[in-house]
Structure formats: C-alpha cells, structure tokens
C-alpha cells in the first residue's frame, strides 16, 4: 500500500515539475525581453518614425501598420464568421452540406500560415493586382482568422441553452427575433473572446504579411489601403535577421518584441478575463 502511494507521489511530482518547467520557460522568455527591451521603450520610441536606416528612432509606422492590418482583418472576419456560425448552429439541418462546411472550417484552421501567405500572394497581390498592400494583407489575415471566429462563435452559440430558444419561439417570436434577443446577447461574451484571440493572432502573424503587405522599410505612414506598410511582427523579423547592422539594432529589436508581446499578451489576458467573468456570472 505504501509502495503504491510512493509510486503515485513520484509520478505526480514529475508531472508537477514538468508543468513548472514550462511556466518557468515562459517567464524566462518574457524576462529576457523585458530586461533587454525596457531600456529602449519610451514615448518617442512608440511615436517616432525610424531614423538612420532604422538604427535609431521609433517604430510608429510598424505599430500603425499592425493596427491597420489587424483591424482590416477583423472587420471582414467578424461579420462573416459570426454569420456563418449562426447559420450552422441555428439554421442548417444536419446533412451533407453542413458536414462539408464543417470539414472546410476544420481544414482552414489547420492550414499553415505560410500557405495562407502564399495564397494571399497569389490571389490578392498577383491575381487581383492589389499589390503589396494593406488590403492584400488584411484579406489574407481575414481568411486566416476566419475559422477561429467561426469556431469560437459556434461554441458560444451552442452554449446558449436550447430552452431559451424554445421559450422564445413558443411565445410566438420569429426565428430571427429569437436569435437576436435570446441567443446573440448570451453568446456575445464568447464571440467577443474568440474575436479578441483572433485579433491577437492576426497581430502576431508574420509570414503571411511578409508575402502580401509589408515592406522592409517604409519611411512614411500608409495613406490608403492600397499602400504597403510596415508592421511590428515583420519589423522584428527583418531587424533580427535581415538588417545590415544586426548587432547595432538589437536593442531596438528587443524593444519592438516587447511592444508586440505586450499587445498580444494583453489581448490574450483580456480574452481570458472576459471568459472567466462571463462563466462566473452565467447563471443558467
């Protein structure tokens, strides 16, 4: 009996150590970026244009570019993703079509981001001739995050009890009235969580935008969606690997990483907080 317990304790401790190790890794990584990057973070770093071949100055155009690209993606993805989820949950009858749509969504979710990049490159940049532009990048990111939004919205809709719908329909509400008043409001936190996570993911994506939207260096802010741009993620990549004076710009690179990481992790934390609060408040 004691041997049994000893074995159990040993295994549990191994598992606990493993988990702790992964936490440790995250903290070490974040600490690396904070300790190396905090020095360069300043108001001017965030709001200035890059200067002297990006060895000095700020990353303002990159931040702006990331915001544009991300906003563009979510503006397309949210309505279409939510609409798609509503159709699948509320309207579609189980059958061939739903199965095909489902497997399409599952497969979209699994497509590597670089393939999205190449797709965006082939379709938007080349075929539709949008060129290397915010539009091409946004559309590419939109397609990339669409499955995330659909899945999150679908889960959120399915989480609304059937009894709400029955109750409303039984009172003579139409299907759309029921969805609008009795389903969507209660699915909203879940949909929102999904949307925020999708935004975070889009903001951090690099490969697709390298092929569709960004330039190594662009000294001015984009003036229209047909302009190319800089973006934080790609900026980090270029500064870390492509710059002619890698060591000189390393502090700035750390700073950029810290900015990107703060944005993305804040969004993630926000999503987690919303979800936790909503789960706690949920009383049905």
């Amino acid at each position, binding site marked *: 009996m004691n041997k049994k317990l000893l074995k159990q304790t040993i295994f549990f401790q191994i598992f606990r150590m493993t988990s702790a190790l992964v936490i440790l890794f995250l903290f070490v990584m974040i600490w690396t970026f904070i300790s190396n990057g905090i020095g360069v973070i300043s108001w001017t770093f965030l709001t200035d244009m890059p200067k002297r071949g990006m060895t000095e100055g700020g990353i303002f155009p990159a931040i702006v570019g990331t915001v544009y690209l991300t906003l563009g993606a979510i503006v397309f993805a949210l309505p279409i993703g939510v609409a798609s989820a509503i159709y699948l949950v509320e309207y579609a009858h189980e059958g061939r079509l739903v199965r095909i749509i489902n497997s399409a969504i599952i497969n979209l979710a699994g497509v590597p981001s670089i393939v999205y990049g190449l797709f965006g490159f082939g379709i938007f940049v080349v075929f539709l001739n949008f060129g290397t532009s915010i539009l091409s990048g946004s559309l590419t990111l939109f397609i990339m995050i669409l499955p995330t939004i659909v899945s999150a919205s679908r889960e959120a809709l399915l989480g609304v009890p059937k009894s709400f719908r*029955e109750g*409303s*329909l*039984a*009172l*003579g509400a*139409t299907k759309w009235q029921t969805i609008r*008043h*009795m389903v969507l409001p209660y699915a909203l936190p879940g949909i929102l969580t999904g949307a925020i996570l999708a935004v975070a993911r889009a903001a951090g994506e690099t490969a697709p935008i390298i092929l569709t939207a960004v330039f190594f260096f662009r000294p001015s802010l984009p003036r229209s969606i047909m302009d190319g741009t800089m973006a934080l993620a790609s900026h980090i990549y270029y500064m870390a690997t492509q710059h002619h004076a890698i060591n000189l710009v390393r502090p700035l690179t750390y700073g950029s990483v810290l900015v990107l990481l703060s944005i993305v992790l804040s969004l993630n934390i926000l999503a987690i907080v919303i979800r936790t609060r909503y789960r706690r408040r949920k009383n*049905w």
Partner: protein
Amino acid sequence: MPVKIETKDLTVSFGDVDAIKNVSMEIFTNRVTAIIGPSGCGKSTLIKSFNRMNDLVSNVKITGQVLLDGENIYGTNYDVVTLRKKVGMIFQKPNPFPKSIYDNVAYGPRIHGIHKKEILDKIVEENLKKAALWHEVSDRLNSSAMDLSGGQQQRLCIARALAVEPEVILMDEPCSALDPIATAKIEGLIRTLSRDYTIVVVTHNMQQAARVSDYTAFLYLGKLIEYGLTKDVFENPQNDLTEKYLTGKFG
C-alpha cells in the same frame, strides 16, 4: 361541448420512426386535458405538434391534420407565429430567461410590438396575478428571474406565456422538476386557469393527471389507446393496456 383542437389522423415521424401514429382526438374548450403514457410513448411529441414546435427538429415529417378552431395549422398559409401566440407552452424544466422578472413577462408583448411602459406595466402585473406570483414578487420585479425558486420560476413561465394572450396552454410535464408543495401550487393554478384557457398537460404522474384534468388520453407507442373523462378512465378503463398502465402492471 365546443372543440378547441382537433387532430385528424395525425402521424409524426422522425426519420423512419413514427412517434405519433394516426391519432385522432378532440380537445375541448376550457377544459384540462391530460396526456399520460409511459416514457417515449409520444406524449411530448403530440403536444408539440399543437404549436408546431416539432418543426424545430430537422428530420420531422408530419401527416394528417391539426385543426385549431377548425383551421388546419399545418395548412400552407397558416402563420406559425400567430399559432404560437394563440397556443402557449410551458416546458418540463422551468426556463425563465436570464432577465429580470419584469422583462420575462414583457418579452412576449415586446416581441409582438408593445413598447409603451404603462401598457407593459399593466400586462406584467395582470399576468403575474393570474399566475399567482404577484404577491411574492411585486416588490422585486427588477431582480433576476434566475433567483426565484423552481416553483416560482415555473409560475413565472406561466405568467410569461399568459402575457401574449394565448387561448390554449400546452404544458409539457410542468411539475417534473418541482417539489410537492410547488407542484400543488401549479396544479391549483392549472385548475384556476382552466376557467379561461384550454389546457393540455403532459404528465408521467398519473395521480397528477387524475387530480388536474377533466379528460385523460392514454398514449402507448404513439397510438391513442384510450381517451375519455378522467373519472371514467381512472375508475374503469376500457382498454386492457390502459388498465395495465394505470395499475402498474406494465411488463
């Protein structure tokens, strides 16, 4: 006796399975009709065909007719929304919306275009009174319906259904999730409401059927086995299956 609902050769199937087979019956105005039968006999399916809630199931097929005031509700031009306004429904598990007590009752009227505060106030009060809930909640209409007890929630659902001024109220095992005292209150309410409404109650509790109903229908494997005055069905059932079911001698 005026007939409110009449089914003619009603058959409801899900896929290949017939849940209701050739049921023809008349439901009388301002009477309580109980539908009893073993689990899976089609009781719920039967009443859900009275307000077309079965339509929500994807592979459902319905043949025959259901006449409400002589009009076929499965007719091509019949408006489901109007139907469900006329035929309210109370569900097995109390399903108040996670809104305030007031908004629960006001939900139906609002959906149907009533937005004036004074009118809504009146509707809410009137129907909470009808559902015998008013004196328990009149001081906290704006608190969440989810904080009410199970029995109160069910009465709130009844008030909510009454607020759209139905003529028929369908109840799908309305007390199965409630304790005996809450059950007694709902049963009393059913008797009171039967003065103004035609009520159809599905129940697996035979004693409840005996207590609240004027007429009792016994359903077995989707077929209407016996239908008649409750006192006759319970004292002297004509069909051997009914007898066996009522006395608990079911194999």
